[in-house]
């Protein structure tokens, strides 16, 4: 498990959002990597089988990439460890096994087998920092490949 980033270095609004996320869906959510203007947040392990998602893998770690200036900018992209494969072997739209956004995340111990799901979260409400608490629900939407 990667070490958590120093929260005192993060903007107040972002930390408020992170706390909202912890209170809502992901009690153990933590920032595992900060890269310039974005942070990778480890949301929580997801039981794919229990959720009835059509992947060969039974579970995964779910990450979301959020801007440090949230809610002034949109989150962009999610990641899973391991890289997921559909049971019918069909290609997953905009899923990358290698992408610049996950290069450094993949270097963390245990995260080498990783997949980046490109996704703009355009319709997510961003009127206050606490909306970061919606991150997990939105990330699951992407796993379900909802439009």
């Amino acid at each position: 498990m990667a070490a958590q980033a120093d929260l005192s270095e993060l903007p107040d609004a972002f930390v408020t959002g992170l706390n909202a996320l912890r209170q809502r869906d992901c009690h153990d959510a933590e920032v595992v990597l900060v890269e310039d203007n974005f942070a990778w947040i480890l949301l929580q392990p997801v039981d794919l089988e229990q959720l009835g998602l059509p992947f060969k893998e039974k579970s995964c770690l779910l990450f979301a990439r959020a801007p440090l200036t949230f809610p002034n900018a949109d989150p962009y992209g999610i990641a899973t460890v391991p890289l997921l494969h559909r049971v019918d072997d069909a290609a997953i739209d905009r899923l990358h096994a290698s992408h610049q956004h996950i290069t450094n995340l993949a270097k963390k111990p245990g995260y080498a087998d990783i997949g980046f799901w490109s996704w703009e979260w355009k319709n997510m409400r961003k009127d206050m920092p606490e909306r970061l608490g919606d991150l997990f629900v939105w990330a699951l939407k992407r796993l379900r490949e909802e439009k």
Partner: protein
Amino acid sequence: MPVESDFAFAADIERKLRSILFPTKRPRAPERGVIGIVYRSTGSRRSTLLLSELIYAEPGDVDWKSDVGLLFSKNYKSRAVSIASTRKRAGLIFIHTHRARLDGLPPEPSDEDYAADQRDLYFLGQDLSDGAPLVAGIVDDNFNWTVREYEFTCPMTVADARSRGPKYRLKNMRFCEGIRIWSNQLTLKDTNRSRRDRHRISQSTIHMTDSSIHMWGEEGQELLRRIRLGIVGLGGVGSILAEHAARLGVRDLVLVDFDRLSKDNFNRSQGATRLDFLLRRHKVKVAARLARKSAVNKDIQIIEIIGSVVEKDTIRHLLDCDLILNASDSPWGLQVLDQLAHAHIVPVITGGTIIKGKKQTGTLMSGKCEVTLSNPGVLCLECAGSYNRSGVTEAMEAPNVRGPRRYLDVPDDPGAVDTELERAPSVIATNGLVASLMLLRLQALIVGTTTDAINGIQRYHLLEGSLYWAVKTQCDVTCARKETVGLGDAYALPTGIDQDYKYARKAEPKNIVMRCFQFLGDFVAELRA
């Protein structure tokens, strides 16, 4: 550490202050007063106290007695403290009125005023956060101000706190030197403690600006000379703005850009020579040189900032400005400046052009120039549609993963979407038009030339050749900008690391030898061409 000290507020506060302190219908006591919430805005050279909110007095809260003068009730003071103490970095200001002096100078505090300031502010300040400004202000019938900020030493023990009066704890008292009131137009008032250069404009400047003085008088010319103007983005539009501002009579400029001149931007950079792009000179250096050569004020002062508007280090310098002209088209930069305009009460006039053409046939598909003002109480840039959060998010990404709208031409990352750089076409004539519209807006704000042409979005449509004002003049109901007016340093601007600037820094030659090689290579290529 800032050496200048100002006091500022926006139109809404001015209106409220006038109605509370100088009511026209009710009978007036010899002195009136009100308590307000203040925040600090810290620039690199100037610290500004921003009056953000007034706490309305209830009947009996403010009383004038002939033997003791003006008194604020305990209840009123405690209400003010309880409001300020719940807000991060909020301080208090006690404002009261004096009669205007016959000599027209700003009001002078009496000995009783000093004693009351220290007593009230010292005790009330104990309940506020560390560093919260503690301020007292006097305003006269002519709306002249005297504002002073107090700093007290903190008692170390309870006995210490009880043993000596507040006057022994006074660490520092500082008078604000300038007062900025932004309503539809800028009112810039000196206090009698001003450090600013208060000499009248020189005879030589008067001769050179004679045609302008015919329009707005020596007073208007003096105002233009006294403002500190920031210009962000010294490309096609910004380089014109720098020259014209200097010719207009602005004496104090802060120029901001990180980019260097190159073959790609030479055709639209006012004042740039071939040698400038061969030497890859910074745009700010070239624009500053041009402004100095064109200045009607011999003593023009230019601060050249090689930096990005989305980075904190640069923002400090922009907080020293009275007004900012933005000619950079980064959505992220627009967002930062829009929020800065409201939180720090420094209006921003922004302008740009979008042109779509067919390269093959050389025909113009569509194009518009747009100039907008961001200022408390008027349409913000986000509601004006000048930027959106999706564009801001994209601008925060590294240039090689950004796609076709990126600013710099950098090699794509293998994992990124492979796209050819499609830089938006730029035409020098439209740059001139945008710069003119921006300067007209500046004149309207500073010297009041065109008072009906201040707020809103002005658009020029290239295909039709028509110039008109957009219908939308007010922010959306859900807009959060009005909640942030005057919060100063207490409001965190959405700054970060400019990825274009980061890339540009990486691409810089590491030492003088490398730089010489680069120059020689470019020089030979130019000769061959």
